[in-house]
């Protein structure tokens, strides 16, 4: 009755990596527009709490996903107002959003702690296994995002804003509006990433349950060179790092859980070292800089 090791690790990695992938895609869209969102962890938490609360309230996990997406979007739009509308420093604003997310998610989730919800049902849509809807939609979401960024006019404008907003502005685009749109989409994806944790993986809400996944996602964006397709590979690798140690333990091979928990972060550091080696960075040139407009 026991599943073969490779299949078990793969399915665990996919489950673990899905929330990472959504969060990475969300951060990626924002960064392509030139805005770094360090508060991604907060957005994921808000999404997880809102999703869990809505599911507990309404009894429908899909409504929960919708609520999580909207809550994440609201959070990111808040960041957008602070950064685009008021010109605040992006890093500081992102960190403020992080703490805000911690607090807001605790506030939303507190009355629902301990509630038993029907999580997302697992659908066996192919012979690869039975996963919930968000897992099945993860890869299509990445592909869609790739098309959106690299094959549409909107995507071109988005990338232009991320590279040099002054040029985009001169070409007739509105950088501020595009950045807002990117953040809205990013928040939507980030919220869904959080919801996957509370509605599919753990089926419960606990304070701070993302346990640093938001920061791993931010690192993953760099790992993926701001390309959604590479983000899929990265999310799978990072998901595997977490899943592997638990599966190995279940098999009887002893690996220190504390050592294995370090691995995603060690990977991140390694990536940053290697990716920083080449002079030509793949980052959007105007990443982190605010565009104050041409008066």
């Amino acid at each position: 009755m026991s599943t073969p090791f490779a299949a078990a690790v793969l399915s665990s990695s996919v489950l673990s990596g899905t929330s990472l992938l959504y969060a990475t895609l969300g951060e990626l869209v924002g960064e392509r527009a030139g805005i770094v969102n360090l508060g991604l962890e907060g957005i994921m938490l808000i999404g997880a709490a809102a999703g869990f609360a809505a599911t507990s309230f309404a009894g429908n996990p899909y409504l929960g996903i919708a609520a999580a997406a909207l809550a994440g979007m609201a959070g990111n739009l808040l960041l957008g107002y602070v950064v685009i509308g008021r010109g605040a420093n992006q890093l500081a604003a992102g960190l403020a959003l992080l703490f805000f997310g911690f607090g807001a998610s605790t506030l939303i989730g507190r009355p629902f702690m301990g509630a038993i919800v029907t999580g997302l049902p697992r659908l066996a849509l192919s012979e690869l296994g039975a996963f919930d809807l968000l897992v099945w939609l993860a890869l299509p979401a990445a592909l869609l995002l790739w098309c959106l960024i690299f094959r549409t006019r909107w995507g071109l404008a988005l990338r232009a804003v991320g590279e040099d907003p002054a040029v985009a502005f001169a070409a007739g685009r509105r950088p501020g509006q595009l950045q807002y749109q990117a953040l809205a989409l990013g928040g939507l994806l980030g919220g869904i990433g959080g919801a996957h944790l509370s509605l599919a993986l753990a089926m419960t809400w606990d304070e701070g349950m993302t346990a640093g996944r938001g920061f791993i996602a931010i690192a993953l964006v760099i790992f993926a060179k701001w390309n959604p397709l590479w983000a899929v590979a990265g999310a799978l690798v990072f998901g595997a790092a977490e899943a592997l140690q638990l599966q190995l333990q279940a098999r009887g091979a002893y690996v220190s859980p504390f050592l294995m928990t370090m691995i995603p972060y060690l990977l991140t550091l390694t990536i940053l070292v290697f990716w920083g080696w080449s002079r030509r960075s793949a980052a959007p040139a105007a990443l982190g800089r605010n565009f104050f407009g041409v008066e």
Partner: protein
Amino acid sequence: MTRRRLLILAGLLLFAAEPARAEATLTVGAIYVGSVNDYGYNRAMKDGLTAMKEAVPGITLLEAENVPETAEAERIMEGMIQQGAKLIFATSFGHQQFAFNLAKKHPDVVFEHAGGWMQAANFGNFFAATQAAWYPMGVAAGKMTKSNTLGFVAGVPIGFIIGDVNAFALGARSVNPKAEVRVVVTGSWADKAKEAEAANALIDQGADVITMHVDSPATVIQVAESRGVYSIGFQSIEARALAPKGWLTGLGFTWGPFMTATAKSVIAGSFKPAMVRQGLGEGMLAVAPFGNAVPEETRGLVLAAVDKIAKGYNPFTGPLSDNTGAVRLKEGEALGNDKMGDFDWYVAGVIGKAK
């Protein structure tokens, strides 16, 4: 006497009368490391305090949930003392040092810490001796398993937890010599996503009875229930609400009697600090009601094992070898309660390395 003096005298008398009523009350402060809605450790603490409040008239209970195991705990307990608390329950292992610091600063306040070892004139320690109590849980699991693989999700691999796993394995193998226990350590007392993944990993390896020692059994039990395997609960007997189909039995802390006795002793002024460790049958641990899946014969075996432990049977009696074959306890040797924190080896039948 003038009317004015009469009124002043009456006012003073009323004022003097107040303390007589106030002496009957005791303000008790309690800090929890998590939420009391966890169907687990914190819920059991809350239930105990509620029982204490109902048993002793005039108690005012101040509570704080989600108190981290950092200096913040000290500040929160200090706040409770400012509000008049004379008895503080620091319910999580990591609150120990902070409670101890405050005990030195406030010699008139009594502190009771759960799960540690420090003691002072106004600082006592209490916990249940859980290890032997896992033996009857193992009996239940050993009888109910069909795949002969049992899964145990452990939080932090300290000696006490390894002891729990060992007793569980010994109990299982006493009724089913082919049973094996697989252990997955998550590394944290409360990481819900990891607990879910750990439970899934164990079920992937064929475990059809899952149990755990983490702060909240909720996630592991829910995963087990969603995958159609049996579960055995821990921390709070209320956890059976989570698994209507797969629940076998469970252990729960019943802190009520101890907390009531402590409160009464503080009110009477007769508090004596002690390192209290009670096992099954001494009041701090209870066995949960059986689930519907458990047949009569198995219930009988489990209850017999409970009785055996309550009467003093120590499963850690030699001859006993660990899972590499090395002899750990010779004929006639036994490990007492004080050695439960020293475990760094698994008994035969447990798959994994303890260190």
